[in-house]
Structure formats: structure tokens, C-alpha cells
């Protein structure tokens, strides 16, 4: 018997329900309002009163409306067909909804139950299996989508039968498993999993040891993110957070991309809908949309579902990780999620923490970031979830609770700076304040030096130092005037400008410059450092400035040219000539 209840109080989307039985924390319930069912989640229980947050508008709700509890937490439906889909925060399929407007209480199925998938068995009768073991696979687009023993299965099972190769629907019986007590369990292509709980089923979660290429130089060269790592991008509005995230989504070296548009502009999601089906994945040549799932809870959609949206997105990533794939989760923006938590905490009249955010904000954020990671699966293969979130600090001030809490949880920090954005130096990532903790991991350093070049990490440190030094002398030149400092100061400054313009700045709207493969990044960094090492013996600062301006211009043309093309080599010749002449 399901627990039921009746509505006794309403403040905006926080509803109190008098219950007639047992409920659990985070259990889902449906409130009946004139035949329409509104989905809600239990967030607090005191005595016979359950406090539920409603995922929809509560307009017209009355004291006395009936409520039915569902017996489980908010779950994601996992199976073939997740890719290329567009869901709201509760995983309703937005593409199959009728009408222009979202209707309250309209819930659509995340997966297509009628579609046929071509199944190939992996497990054999007699195999011993446990949760997350692979039973077979279907081709989802071009990716092998593994059909697994459901994550909720505890203990060991023996495979009794597996369906033969052929075309099946997602609800068809794919295997029968027998547990230790001799009881039979049917496995289909679909399974459900509560989004707030991390999916396990792996052997271990080692420290990340290899980097994930993004094609964005300021990330890959200066502060690389590890595969299975975490990073965040804080920045005031208008600094290019979304452009940078979209660039990573387009170019990231991952097999699965999940984009969670959490409380942001709807037109930005429209941009993804419009562009991704056309754009090509630079790593596979397939259409970007084929590897992408969009979870979209824009700023005007119900606030409570914002929190659900990031968890749903993470659960889908973890599901693909269990298949041995590289998943990348991009969430824009986690501040909106934190604000949703704040609104609810406020309505529950909890004692507030800093800026009226709930006091456990920091714990919630670090718990979420900790779900990312590279894992070793039971069959020895690896899978990973890399997570990059954006943060929208109020007033652009990084000393606010969401930024501070995230800084404790994420290992990479890409600080977008108003000043750089004003000067149109995009991506506006501050090269000095940003960091990647992964550069401190010996295994990552070893990986980078082996993959890129022997002294890569040293070269990067050198370049960083030049940028830092350049910033310092720029201030002195500003105070003392061009004539007030020795020519060597100007040279220092222009070296850092060279690195800034050639390596750090990148045109996200230029076909060639937008994506720089690691090999090209190595080449360009070494070439820039060669210029920085050259001794020019300038007579005065004017000569220094014009030489470097010329160099920067030539280097930029190089960035716009196909790598190793005739044009590229032509510019290279010009640069070598400048170095030789001086």
C-alpha cells in the first residue's frame, strides 16, 4: 500500500503534507490538483508532516488536495537512446512534448520503447556476474552501448540465459540471472537509478593520471584538466563563460558529452540545438549531436528542478562511465543550483549561512564534485567522468560562498577576468590566478612529458613565469613612463604580450584557431619560447615594441593557417628571419 497524504500548507513551491504512513527522505510524491499530477520531493519530515518541494508551479493548489507517495527517490531512466536527446531536469523528453508551452504535470518518457536496437551478447550462460557487469551491447549511433547487470543488484549472480544476437526493444528480456538463493531475475536494456546516489559497480577510483585534451590552449597548455578531473570557471557576466564551455563541448576529447543548462538563458540552449546537429566532432568526424545529451532547465523553468537537473546529468555520465567510456559533464551554472537551494532553505526557515545560502552548501558542492573521476571497471577497463562547472559570482566578486565552496572541491580553476574581457582578450582566463592542481601530480607530469615532449612541463612553467614577470614590469612602466625604465623592461613586457597573444588568446569563432591539437600546441609553445630566448639587443623601446608587434602579427596569421601548410611555413620563415636579423 502506498502512503498517501493531504496538503495542509503552501508557501510558493514548498508544500506541507499530512501523511498517513511512512515516507522516506527524498521520496517522490504526486499531488493531485483537479486530475493533474504535480511531481514533488520530500525534503523534510517532522512527525506526521512531510515538507515537499514541488517541481512545478503550485498555483491553484488547495489545502486538502490529495497526495500519493511513490516509494522511491527521483530516478533516472538509463538505457540506449539517451544520446542526442534533450531532457528537462527531471528527464522528461522535451522533443516529444505537445504544444509550444510547457504544460504543468506533463511528463514524457525519456526513452523510445518502440525502437529496435541490434543486440550482441557478451556474457555467456554460466558466467558469474554482479552489478555493472556487461551482458551484451547495442550500437547507439556509432558507440557500443553496453547492456549491464542493473546497478541495484546486490551480490553475485549466475547467467542462466542471454538473448541471441538480433533486434530487440528496450523492454525485451535480454538475460535471465539466478541469484545465490536460486531466484531468477530478468534483465532488460533499461534500468533506473536514484540520481542523488553515485553509481558504483567499479573496482577502484585511482588518482587521475592522464589529461583530457580540449583544444583550448589556455587550458591544455597552461592548466590542463585531467581525464576524470574536476574544474570550474567563475566569471562575471559578459566574460565569455558560455562561449568557453561551448568550445570545450565542441572539442573536448570525450566520447560522451552531457550538457546541463541549469538556470541559464534559453536562447543559449537553442544555439546548441541549432548548431550541434550540424557541427562535426573533430575527433571522430561524426556529428556532435550524436555524442551529446542535453539536460535543460533554463532560468524560467521550475526552480526546484534545477537541483535535479545537475544530478540527472551526473547520473547519465556515470552510467556511460560504467561502460568504459570517457564522459564529460558541463554544467552552466552551478550558482543557479545553489540559488535554488537557498530559496528552499529560506522557505523552510532554516538558519542561514553566508549570503543567506544554506550552511551545508559547501558539503553539497564537494559531494557532487566527488562523483567525477576515472574508475577501473570489474573487467579491467577504465571509464571516466570529467566535470567542469561554471560559477556566476554575484557582482563578479570571487569572495562569495558558491565560488569559495567550489574552489575547495574542484581541482582546476579557470578565473575569467573582466579586465581581459574588456580588452577583448578571449578566452578571458586570467593566466596568473588560474591553476590546475593536476600539474602537481607526478603521474600527470610524467604522462605529459611522455606524450608531448621531454621537457614540456618545464617549458610551461617557464612560459608562466614570463607572463607573471611581464605583468609586474607592465605596472612599473605605467608608473615610471616609457622612458623611465631600461629597455630590458620593455623586452620583458613584450615577451609576455607575445605569449598572451599567441598562446593564451584564441579565436573561438575561427575554424582553424578555435581548436589546437596538442602537437600543434607543443610546436607553438616551443617556437614562442625560442623567440623569448633570442637576444635582440634593442637600441630603444620603440624598436622593441615594433619588432614584437610585427612578431605578434605574424604569429597570429600563423594561428589562423592550417598547421604545416605552405602559408603556415611562409609565416614561420618570416619569424625566423626576424630572429636572425636582430
Amino acid at each position, binding site marked *: 500500500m502506498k502512503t498517501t497524504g493531504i496538503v*495542509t*500548507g*503552501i*508557501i*510558493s513551491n514548498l508544500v*506541507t503534507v499530512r501523511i498517513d504512513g511512512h515516507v522516506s527522505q527524498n521520496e517522490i510524491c504526486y499531488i493531485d490538483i483537479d486530475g493533474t499530477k504535480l511531481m514533488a520531493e520530500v525534503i523534510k519530515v517532522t512527525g506526521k508532516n512531510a515538507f515537499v518541494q514541488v517541481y512545478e*508551479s*503550485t*498555483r*491553484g*493548489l*488547495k*489545502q*486538502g488536495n490529495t497526495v500519493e507517495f511513490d516509494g522511491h527517490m527521483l530516478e533516472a531512466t538509463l538505457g540506449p537512446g539517451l544520446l542526442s536527446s*534533450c531532457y528537462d531536469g527531471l528527464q522528461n523528453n*522535451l*522533443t516529444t*512534448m505537445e*504544444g*509550444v*508551452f*510547457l*504544460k*504543468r504535470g506533463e511528463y514524457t518518457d525519456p526513452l523510445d520503447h518502440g525502437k529496435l536496437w541490434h543486440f550482441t551478447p557478451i556474457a555467456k550462460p554460466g558466467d558469474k556476474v554482479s552489478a555493472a557487469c556487461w551482458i551484451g551491447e547495442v550500437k547507439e549511433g556509432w558507440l557500443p552501448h553496453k547492456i549491464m547487470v542493473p546497478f541495484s543488484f546486490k551480490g553475485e549472480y549466475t547467467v542462466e540465459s542471454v538473448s541471441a544476437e538480433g533486434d530487440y526493444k528496450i523492454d525485451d528480456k535480454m538475460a535471465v540471472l539466478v541469484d545465490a538463493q536460486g531466484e531468477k531475475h530478468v534483465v532488460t536494456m533499461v534500468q533506473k537509478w536514484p540520481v542523488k546516489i553515485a553509481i558504483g559497480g567499479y573496482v577502484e577510483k585511482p588518482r587521475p593520471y592522464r589529461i583530457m585534451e580540449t583544444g583550448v590552449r589556455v587550458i591544455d597548455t597552461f592548466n590542463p584538466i585531467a581525464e576524470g578531473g574536476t574544474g570550474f570557471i567563475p566569471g*562575471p*557576466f*559578459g566574460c565569455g563563460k558560455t562561449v568557453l564551455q561551448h568550445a570545450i563541448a565542441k572539442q573536448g576529447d570525450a566520447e560522451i558529452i552531457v550538457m546541463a543548462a541549469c*538556470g541559464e*538563458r*534559453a*536562447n543559449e*540552449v*537553442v*544555439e546548441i*540545438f*541549432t548548431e550541434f546537429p550540424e557541427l562535426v566532432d573533430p575527433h571522430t568526424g561524426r556529428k556532435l549531436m550524436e555524442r551529446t545529451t542535453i539536460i*535543460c532547465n*533554463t*532560468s*524560467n*523553468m521550475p*526552480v526546484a528542478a534545477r537541483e535535479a537537473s545537475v544530478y540527472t546529468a551526473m547520473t547519465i555520465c556515470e552510467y556511460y562511465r560504467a561502460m568504459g567510456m570517457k564522459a564529460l559533464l558541463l554544467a552552466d551554472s552551478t550558482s*543557479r543550483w545553489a*540559488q*535554488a537551494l*537557498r*530559496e528552499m532553505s*529560506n522557505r523552510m526557515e532554516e538558519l*542561514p549561512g553566508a*549570503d*543567506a*545560502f544554506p550552511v551545508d552548501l559547501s558539503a553539497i558542492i564537494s559531494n557532487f564534485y566527488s562523483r567525477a573521476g576515472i574508475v577501473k571497471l570489474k573487467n579491467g577497463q577504465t571509464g571516466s567522468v570529467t566535470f567542469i562547472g561554471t560559477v*556566476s559570482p*554575484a*557582482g*563578479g*566578486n570571487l569572495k562569495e560562498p558558491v565560488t569559495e565552496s567550489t574552489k575547495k572541491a574542484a581541482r582546476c580553476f579557470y578565473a575569467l577576468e573582466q579586465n581581459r574581457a*574588456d580588452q577583448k582578450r578571449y578566452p578571458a582566463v586570467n593566466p596568473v590566478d588560474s591553476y590546475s592542481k593536476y600539474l602537481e601530480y607526478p603521474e600527470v607530469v610524467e604522462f605529459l612529458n611522455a606524450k608531448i615532449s621531454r621537457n614540456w612541463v618545464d617549458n610551461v612553467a617557464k612560459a608562466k613565469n614570463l607572463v607573471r614577470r611581464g605583468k609586474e614590469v607592465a605596472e612599473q612602466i605605467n608608473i615610471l*613612463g616609457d622612458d623611465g625604465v631600461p629597455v630590458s623592461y620593455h623586452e620583458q613586457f613584450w615577451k609576455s604580450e607575445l605569449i598572451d597573444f599567441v598562446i593564451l588568446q584564441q579565436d573561438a*569563432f575561427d575554424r582553424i584557431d578555435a581548436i589546437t591539437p596538442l602537437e600543434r600546441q607543443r610546436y607553438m609553445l616551443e617556437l614562442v619560447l625560442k623567440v623569448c630566448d633570442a637576444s635582440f639587443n634593442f637600441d630603444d623601446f620603440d624598436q622593441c615594441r615594433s619588432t614584437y608587434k610585427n612578431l605578434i602579427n605574424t604569429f597570429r596569421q600563423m594561428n589562423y593557417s592550417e598547421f604545416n601548410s605552405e602559408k603556415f611555413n611562409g609565416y614561420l620563415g618570416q619569424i625566423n628571419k626576424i630572429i636572425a636579423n636582430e
Partner: protein
Amino acid sequence: MSSRAFQRIYTELEAITKATVTLRAQGVSNDELATVNGRLAQVVKIKGDLVTLQIFSGTEGIPTDADVLFFGKAPSLNVSENLSGRFFNAYGEPIDGGPAVEGEARQIGGPSVNPYKRRQPSELIPTGIAGIDLNNTLVSGQKIPFFADPDQPYNQVMAKVALRADVDKIILGGMGLSNDDYLYFRHEFESAGALDKIISFVNTTDQPPVERLLIPDMALTAAEYFAVDKNEKVLVLLTDMTLYADALSIVSNRMDQIPSKDSMPGSLYSDLAKIYEKAVQLPDGGSITIIAVTTLNDGDITHAIPDNTGYITEGQLFLRADTDTGKTIIDPFRSLSRLKQLVQGKKTREDHSQVMNASVRLYADAQNAKTKLENGFDLSDYDKRCLEYAKDYAVNILSIDVNISIEEMLNTAWALFAKHFDRTETGIKDALVEKYWPDGSK
């Protein structure tokens, strides 16, 4: 609003605050409307049989034995073609002496458009103001505010933009409008002979602030009727959103909510987003474009209201007084239209984005030269030419009293380049310079 038969009247209030009253009542639904001694109120909280009502016009003089009547429905607006040319108050009642509008009653603050059903905005909205059309081109379906200090002529600029824009309907949502400004809008609309395509919802400063909270929803419900049902291009003007946010903070304060930054409610972002995100390009050709005004306190954009607005809207237009020329200009550095690249060079001439970038870059060089001058350093010949250019640029392009076509703006910009600079100094692609550089100059 008339009462229904057999309607129960409650006459015992349990509590009264400055904006709310609480009473015991049965069968009341959330967001429902009521009257308290004839004043319109809305249910904001239900706890057991205790119902809290927010009275829009304030609780001054409300006795504990006031008559409370519940309507059983949320605030709504009667929509039909007859809305055109009319002026209404925050409750959707006519204030122009005309009859009440007959039509379908639609609840205000309705549901959102399914993001998957939206289309990418792609239609240019020309305004004749070069600081907007050339540097920060507006696109239908966009939402963008003017950030302006209270002493700047933002309402005048907005009225100009609205009357020049090629749209089917203009809907004005005036919040805390001074009576003078209300009359100004009315006069402008009437004298432009455009009254039949304009609908106004107005709350003036002499009316209670909480009423303002209804204005954007009223205006946008009317906008959705014309954009969705009639496939029309609708432009919505909201002025002043800062006063709207102030009203929000008053209500949340009365409801004992814990304030967040700048004593604004924690839900400010969602509250503003719900309004601005109504801007949409619909699949069947209709669109809602929102131009708003957010007044600033001495140019401070880190205050919670402009800050949250900036995260929601697709850019912002900054008004600034240019002391060198005495003109009010659209600041080219701090203004931004995030959607401009969707139309620049696509719906306008090929040289648009290059000319825009070059002209702003040279203006930036002029600012650097100005700083140099102020710090007592010597100016180079280039610096001096930049300063001369900056004056011409401010008067002929940036000033809000410019009214020319985009083609003329581009030609004006080329003429200024030719007057003050040589070809290489603009940094524009060679092919474009060959084609557009005015003849007979250096």
C-alpha cells in the same frame, strides 16, 4: 470584478502587517485573488486553515473586521484585438476612460515556452540609433536592458526606439513611472499616430509600489496573446525594473524572508528570469522582444539588481554623458548585444562587423591618448588624430540623437576613417578597404 452568488464572506482577520493580512478560511487555493474591504489581494501562504493575503495597495486603514471575498482564480487579463490602443492599470482595468475589454480571460504569469520549440532569433530590429544598430545590433526575440543613471533620458530613448522599430505591437509596462513620464509616453505615442499598435500597463509613483509586481506579467500576457495567437512581432518595454525589484524586496521583507545581497530576496534571479525569459522567437513567426530599463545607483553594476539582470539578459545598453561633446551617447565599451553576430553581415552589409570593431578599437585608442594627456605625457601624432576622431565618432555615431539607416552608418564610419587615418591604421581586411574606402583621400 464582481462577486459570485453564494460566495462566503470572511470578516475576522487574525493578523495585519504593512502589506499582508492573515485570516482563517477554508478551500482557498494558492495564488488565488481576493478582495479585502474592496482592495485587491492575492494568496501568498496557506498554513492549515490560516491564509495569508498580500494586499497590493497596502493595508493602511484595514480593520480587523474587514470583509474578505475570495474569487477562486489567479489574476487574469481579458485578451482580444481590442487591447490595442488602450491604457490600463496594474490590474488590467482601463485608465483611459474607455470601456472594459471583452475577451478571453487568461491567467497572467503563465507557463514557459518549451526551449526545444524556440527558434534562434535572426531578425534585425533597426532603431536608427547608430550606437545601437552599428555597435550593438538588436535582434527580435532578444531581451536587453538599458543600464542608466536616473538623470539620463532613458525613457525618451526607449520611446524613440519603440516608435522606430518595425514591429506589429508595442506594449509598455510602466512601473513607478512618474506622472510626467506617463504623460510623456502618452503624448509621444499619440503624436506619432501609432496609438493603434500600442498597449500600455501603467503604475505611477503615486500608486502603491506592490501593485507594480503585476505589471510585467500583465504586459507579457498581452504580448503572448499577440505573438503566439496572432503570430505578430511584439516589442515589450519595461521601465523601470529597478523599481520592480524594490517592490519584490518590500514584499519579501514583510513575509519575514531572510534577505540576500543588497537586501534583495534570495529569489531575485528567478523572479527576474521569469519575466525576461518570456522574450522568444516562436516557430510560427511571432516573437516577443523585451527592452527594459534598469536604473543604476551612480553607475554601480555590481549591485544585486543590475548584476542579476546582466546574467539573465542578452547584453545591456549603457547610456553615458560624453563630456567632450555634451551628447548623451551609447557607451561602446560597456554596452553589448549578445545576439548581434546573428544578424551582422548576414542581414546587413558584409563590412558591418569589421567596421564596428575598427571604429570601437580606434575610440579605445583615443581613450588611452586621453589618459596620457591627463597624466602629462607627450602625445604622438597618432594620439592627436585619435582624439579628433573620437569627437567626430561621438557626435556622428554614438550620440542618441542620430537617426540614419545602417548603410548610412557604415558609410559615415568609413568617411571618419578616411578623414583621420590612413588605410592600414584601421586594421580592416584589405578586400573591404579596397571596396569601401572613400575615393580621393589618403
